[in-house]
């Protein structure tokens, strides 16, 4: 406990906690929709795209690489998700194609052009985000807080529309809801979250942030509202405790958060079995 308090005196630890909790919150809000739309792997796919974009930015000497990565990722997300269930290529197949291409391209470029001697180390930290979260700049933190506020506000504002479009897209379309607009909105938000989240857990583990809280909440609760609220709360708790454990025990941040999410999932599965949907 005293160790934790002494750590909290370092601004970078506080920054990491704030950013971590906010990203976990945003990811879990959209997670419910993405899981239900069978786009669980979108987080993974987009983070590979972002990884490829970062590599290209590094090789091409683009200075504002966050912005560049953001644009590339948003465009990919719109391509994958925008068509809704009318997309020509099946969702999972198109995600797999785009993500594998981006990953391969990114690794290839880093390998061929990298000036650093520790290529696999660099790649590894991009993929697993091992130390990045502790090296956040003030600007990063402010950007993350702003984006999180926007995401949460958009989500609350469009909550009922997101429900309608996710539950029955045809009905929503037929009765005058502009389903395409909301599909694009969801795509753009998730892309922004993925780019931000790469700093926290690295690109490989983003899917965990998107999928686990939603899946855990769905074990126990049976209405959309309860599932959404539960997964948001759960995600925040897991991210916070995961980071605290990581700091105290000196374990990698991303993997530790995922492990807490797994533990929560197991607990919720057991609770779900016991209550049998009576909540």
């Amino acid at each position, binding site marked *: 406990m005293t160790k934790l308090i002494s750590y909290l005196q370092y601004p970078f630890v506080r920054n990491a906690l704030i950013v971590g909790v906010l990203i976990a919150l945003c990811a879990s809000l959209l997670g419910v929709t993405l899981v239900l739309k069978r786009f669980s792997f979108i987080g993974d796919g987009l983070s590979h795209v972002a990884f490829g974009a970062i590599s290209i930015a590094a090789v091409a000497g683009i200075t504002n690489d966050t912005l560049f990565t953001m644009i590339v990722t948003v465009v990919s997300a719109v391509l994958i998700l925008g068509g809704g269930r009318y997309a020509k290529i099946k969702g999972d197949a198109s995600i797999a194609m785009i993500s594998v291409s981006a990953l391969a391209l990114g690794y290839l470029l880093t390998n061929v052009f990298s000036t650093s001697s520790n290529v696999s180390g660099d790649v590894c930290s991009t993929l697993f985000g091992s130390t990045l979260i502790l090296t956040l700049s003030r600007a990063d933190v402010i950007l993350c807080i702003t984006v999180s506020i926007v995401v949460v506000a958009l989500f609350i504002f469009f909550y009922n529309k997101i429900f309608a479009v996710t*539950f029955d897209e045809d*009905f929503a379309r037929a*009765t005058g809801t502009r389903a395409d607009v909301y599909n694009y909105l969801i795509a753009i938000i998730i892309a922004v979250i993925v780019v931000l989240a790469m700093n926290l857990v690295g690109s490989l583990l983003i899917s965990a942030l998107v999928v686990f809280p939603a899946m855990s909440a769905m074990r126990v609760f049976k*209405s959309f509202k309860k599932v959404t609220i539960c997964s948001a709360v759960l995600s925040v708790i897991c991210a916070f405790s995961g980071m605290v454990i990581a700091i105290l025990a000196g374990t990698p941040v991303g993997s530790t958060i995922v492990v807490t999410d797994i533990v929560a999932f197991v607990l919720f599965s057991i609770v779900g079995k016991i209550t049998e949907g009576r909540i």
Partner: protein
Amino acid sequence: MALIKCSDLTLGYENIVLAEHLNLEVNSGEYWCITGENGTGKSTFMKTVLGLRKPLAGTISYGDGLEKNNIGYLPQQMQYQKDFPASVNEVVISGFQGKTGLRPFYNKAEKEQARRNIEKFGLAELADRCYRELSGGQQQRVLLARALCATGKVLLLDEPVTGLDPKVTEEFYELIKKINREDNITVIMISHDLEACRKYATHVLNFGEKITTEEIKHD
């Protein structure tokens, strides 16, 4: 002016044509039944009228102030995800979605109306239950209640009585008749229940070898 006007419509998919040169006018207050054997294109016609599919040729125009957000719709099969967590309440009230525009939440009147529609279909006790855990007939009633929330001028129903028991079916027909007469809501219903079609409809559209329309006179 006609509420819905189909001009020289060709229906079908990439590889098959289901109907050609279909001309049709549906006017406010009418009660249409669409009949025909399986696979003749009834559901396709309805989806085309709703704008969910593009016609292969021809046009569909809405008149008389008809907008998408005063159409109620009951799909024949809903492709919802099997594990979707949604309560009966949430599903029914989502029928109002098209009407809310940019307003983020449902207002008092909408909540009240949703509650009444839930009651009309005898779902009051199931209101907080999970949609996916209901029986087939109960699910059908939930979707009918949702369609009622969405409607304002037109109600399009694709085989609404499928899965309903005889008592609920009878109540349902009476309810639709009442909505049609008293609230002046135009009804377009696909049905295999020919007897009920004769009894309630003002017009019948039959998909057969040829597509025919018939006006039914009630005294």
